[in-house]
């Protein structure tokens, strides 16, 4: 089903996401977990649909036909309770491992505070005393970026599909996420929690650059907007 879609319907620009072109180890782990789960679940989908279609053609009423009279079979009923339950238990194992990978980041190379506003994002780099809003977030490639998210007004959600990250930004609470993007480039995302009138326009733009370019960018940012000393350290 999914691969069928992949062949059609793409406009001129490729869409980056965790499934067709995952960026970094976290997104790839999520994709493997997805494939594993689909391998476990899809047989049940196919089995049910195939049996349904088969029954529809096979058991069409015929003149003088006699319907079967069975209406219980304990062994069968136990079987179709136990087999799905076991399948799910097996699926849970890699799922929990992946959840742990999402929740416990490797050692952080860069902390960025992400703050949601109606209807734009503000980014703060406490280590460098850099802060700005309404422009692309810039991060170095191949580094572990940890995010501390919050909001000044309503609930927003920071979602960049290619990195495998979606995390709500709530007022009055700091939430966490992490990612690592290995290839320089631009990655698009958008706010994923209805946040008001212009929710649809609350885009996210992330520029992944080489570590050298990143250092250069920090210097430029500092030159334009020197730290004012009021920045909070998260």
């Amino acid at each position: 089903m999914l691969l069928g879609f992949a062949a059609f319907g793409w406009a001129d620009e490729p869409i980056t996401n965790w499934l067709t072109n995952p960026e970094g180890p976290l997104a790839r782990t999520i994709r493997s977990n997805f494939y594993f789960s689909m391998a476990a679940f899809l047989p049940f989908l196919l089995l049910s649909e195939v049996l349904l279609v088969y029954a529809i053609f096979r058991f069409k009423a015929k003149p003088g036909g006699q319907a079967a009279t069975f209406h219980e079979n304990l062994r069968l009923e136990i079987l179709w309770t136990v087999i799905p339950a076991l399948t799910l238990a097996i699926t849970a194992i890699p799922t929990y491992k992946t959840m742990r990978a999402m929740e416990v980041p490797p050692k952080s190379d860069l902390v960025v505070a992400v703050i949601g506003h109606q209807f734009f994002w503000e980014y703060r780099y406490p280590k460098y005393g850099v802060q700005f809003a309404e422009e692309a977030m810039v991060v170095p490639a191949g580094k572990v970026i940890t995010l501390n998210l919050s909001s000044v007004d309503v609930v927003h959600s920071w979602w960049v599909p290619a990195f495998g990250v979606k995390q709500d930004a709530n007022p009055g609470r700091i939430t966490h996420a992490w990612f690592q993007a290995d290839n320089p480039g631009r990655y698009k995302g958008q706010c994923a929690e209805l946040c008001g009138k212009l929710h649809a326009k609350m885009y996210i733009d992330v520029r992944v650059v080489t570590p050298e370019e990143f250092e250069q960018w920090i210097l430029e940012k500092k030159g334009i907007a020197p730290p004012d000393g009021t920045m909070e350290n998260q």
Partner: protein
Amino acid sequence: MSDRPKGIVHWLTTTDHKDIGILYLVTSLFMAVFGGSFAGLLRAQLSAANLKVLNPDLYNQFLSMHGTVMIFFVIIPALAGFGNYFVPLLVGARDMAFPKLNALSYWLVIPAAGLMFGSFFVQGGAAQAGWTGYVPLASRQFSGTAGVDMWILGLHLVGLSSILGAINFLVTIINMRAPGMGYFKMPLFVWTWFVNATLILFATPVLAGALTMALTDRAFGTGFFRPSEGGDPLLWQHLFWFYSHPAVYIMVLPGMGIVSHILPAFSSKKIFGYKGIVYATAAIGVIGFMVWAHHMFTSGIDPRLRAFFAFMTMVIAVPTGVKIFSWLATIWGGQIRFSVAMKFALGFIALFVMGGISGLTLAVVPFDVQVHDSYYVVAHLHYVLFGGSVMALLAGVFFWFPKMSGRILDEKLGNVIFWLIFLGMNITFLPMHWLGIVGMARRIYTYRPEFEFWNQVASFGYILLFAGGMLLLYNMFKTLRKGERAADDPWGAYPLQRTLDWSVSSPPPVENFAKIPEIV
């Protein structure tokens, strides 16, 4: 009963369960026209990138009201309608336990609908915070006009209606079964309503509490959900979903009951695994209260909660699977007659399995986090609520219309309606799975150009759904005027199924049974 008032006075004063059932169903149909039209406006706006059919404010109003109307004013009242009409009939009772309370339950829906639709005409328009009404967006600070207040009060009224109805159903089912009808002789539609009423009774008061908190936060500045007052926006999410997840089962269980009558009737077999289906229904009812936070996997809740709720969400798939396999075993080896009711019931299985499996993928937290609040979830919930609840309701309409009206809906036209809806449903919602996976957020009035193609396909699918809906209305209208007369048991279901609905005339007489039947 010649002293019964006629015409409009009759409908305004009736306490007869069958009349109230019909009132619920007609109301639901009427609301579906609005809820469906709202969806049409949304699909029109999304039929190409950067259109200006609706401005962002109106888009968010129709978005919020589409969800609210379809859930609280279409699906739930329609199931209540069938429940009102058929539960007393199926248990061999002359009416619901509390007929006047029953009328009150129905009449509460009308002012509730008035508040909802009226809110479009107040300053600032209807609520714009989605049917989920998340705070702080729905708070006074960010939604200052009366729309959200009217939305809250409207939900309070339908909630009260549901709670009173649930008490009525429980008392009716527990106390008014015909002699000899033990619990394990109850038809499955009664069983599903029994579990359903229990769910409503436990879940809806929690929604009422949450709504009251939201209302006092708005009106008096209490701080239940405001961090600056020591409150927490996540508290709303917990309370809201504590109701609204069971509400999904509230919306689908009675539909499963309807399907469990239709499949055996048109296969000339008995339902397979009756007890298994009963236990599965009860299990879904209980576990349904332990999965709510799977709607909150990205909200920043404790990782241990994510682990627990992911696990329970997988667990609930097991009893759901039991039902699906039991239905397949029911038609297996049967002599299947493809009436329109049967086609909708089979379509229900096909689509509900899709919705069930896509729901299961959402239990896989890493995947859920990727597609949460994306079009994947829109696809999933429509496979469950449209493919599940609505297909089951339509099956019920074709199955029971002869019993209720004494006339059989046009089957040829019904066949066209089935295919329009079945295909339209898939064309509209199947591509949305993909849109969500590649990054299209839900609840957006415009989208980046790369998402255009599949949105056009989805909007085309809507046209088929709309045509199907209109033809259904026409079919009912035409049939009521000059449709084929229905016998007491038009589908030949009674000899094998022995359900009491087919043992009485079509429509049944006032008070159903001259002599209360004995069940052997």
